[in-house]
């Protein structure tokens, strides 16, 4: 982890793309502008954070902007981690994909499936993703089940006592 001053230095180097820094229990977190996520990750890669160890989503219901995308970066030579968070509004949950290579630098191929999972579970659309479709739920599934306002679902269980047909059959 960068220590707290190190995190502030990192944020300063990122300029206005870094909206906020959080240093909590030894974990350094940068909250960044979702419009510039590709640039931010590129800058961090140039500073040694070359491994994207995880991409995941979060729902900050009922706060706005509601949906979050979290990138965990790892510098494997210094064993140093930094968390990058971006928040997107529910009305327009769009953020640039970091999967593909672009004019602004190389992408992170590992983000491919993880971005698909965030899309599947939270409904965040990744602009420019090579194949953005559901990965866990069936293709014809409606809704994004990990959102906080999504019903938990489940089926009423058919035990003998609450199913008249079976009750009759079991006699």
């Amino acid at each position, binding site marked *: 982890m960068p220590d707290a001053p190190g995190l502030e230095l990192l944020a300063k180097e990122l300029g206005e793309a870094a909206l906020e820094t959080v240093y909590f229990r030894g974990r350094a977190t940068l909250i960044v502008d979702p419009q510039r996520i590709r640039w931010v990750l590129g800058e961090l890669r140039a500073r040694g954070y070359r491994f994207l160890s995880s991409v995941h989503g979060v729902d900050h219901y009922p706060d706005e902007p509601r949906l979050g995308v979290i990138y965990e970066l790892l510098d494997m030579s210094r064993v140093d981690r930094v968390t990058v968070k971006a928040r997107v509004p529910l009305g327009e949950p769009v953020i640039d994909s970091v999967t593909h290579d672009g004019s602004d630098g190389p992408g992170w191929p590992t983000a491919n499936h993880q971005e698909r999972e965030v899309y599947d579970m939270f409904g965040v659309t990744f602009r420019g993703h090579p194949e953005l479709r559901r990965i*866990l739920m*069936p293709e014809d*599934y409606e809704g994004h089940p990990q959102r906080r306002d999504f*019903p938990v*679902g489940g089926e009423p269980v058919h035990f003998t006592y609450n199913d008249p*047909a079976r009750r009759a*059959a079991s006699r």
Partner: protein
Amino acid sequence: MRRELLGAAARDTSATEAEARAEQGALRVRELTASQLLRVSDLEGANPPAALEGSDLERNVRDRVLTTTLDKAVAWARSNSFFPLSFGLACCAMEQFQTAGPRMDIARFGYEAFRASPRQADLIILAGRVSIKMAPIIRRLYDQMLEPKWAISMGACCSSMGVFNNYALVPADKFMPIDVHVPGCPPRPEALMHGVLKLRKLVQADPDLGWRERYGALGTEEKPLDA
């Protein structure tokens, strides 16, 4: 004191002698049965069967011939040689493997032939949770199995969805007929064994198990091609 001990020893000896006599009696009975069997086996050799007449013949038939219906004989054979499908969904599958392992040894009952193809299997054990994405695939496997076929729902998840009663899962009863539910999370191999033996009992009593009535599937019977 010494005399008493000797007396006890003497009593012991007499008891052993009695046992030995009883054993001799049992031996005698066994000898008699054997000679009877020998006499009967003579029928196929030197003495023609016509030598037995009247009550002798009746007794011979009663001792040697077992009558049953073809249905029952077939059900007996089927129920003692289920071919389960090699199929596991989640953690219950580990317990399912153990049922085939040496401690439970499913082969004792003739169910060890786990088939890799649904077309060769007549028993599907749903060992684990069934997601709504997996359900059509399982239904397809089940449809590919040839009748008569049976299904065991193993564990809480695929019977009642257990701790995963949420958007992602579906209970097995919703999309295919289940004959035996084995409770547990996961059930121990003994429990699965008990379930399979329950199924054996059911099949011996009624090979059809009436699942078409229970699931409203009358008229879906497989018919020969020329019918």
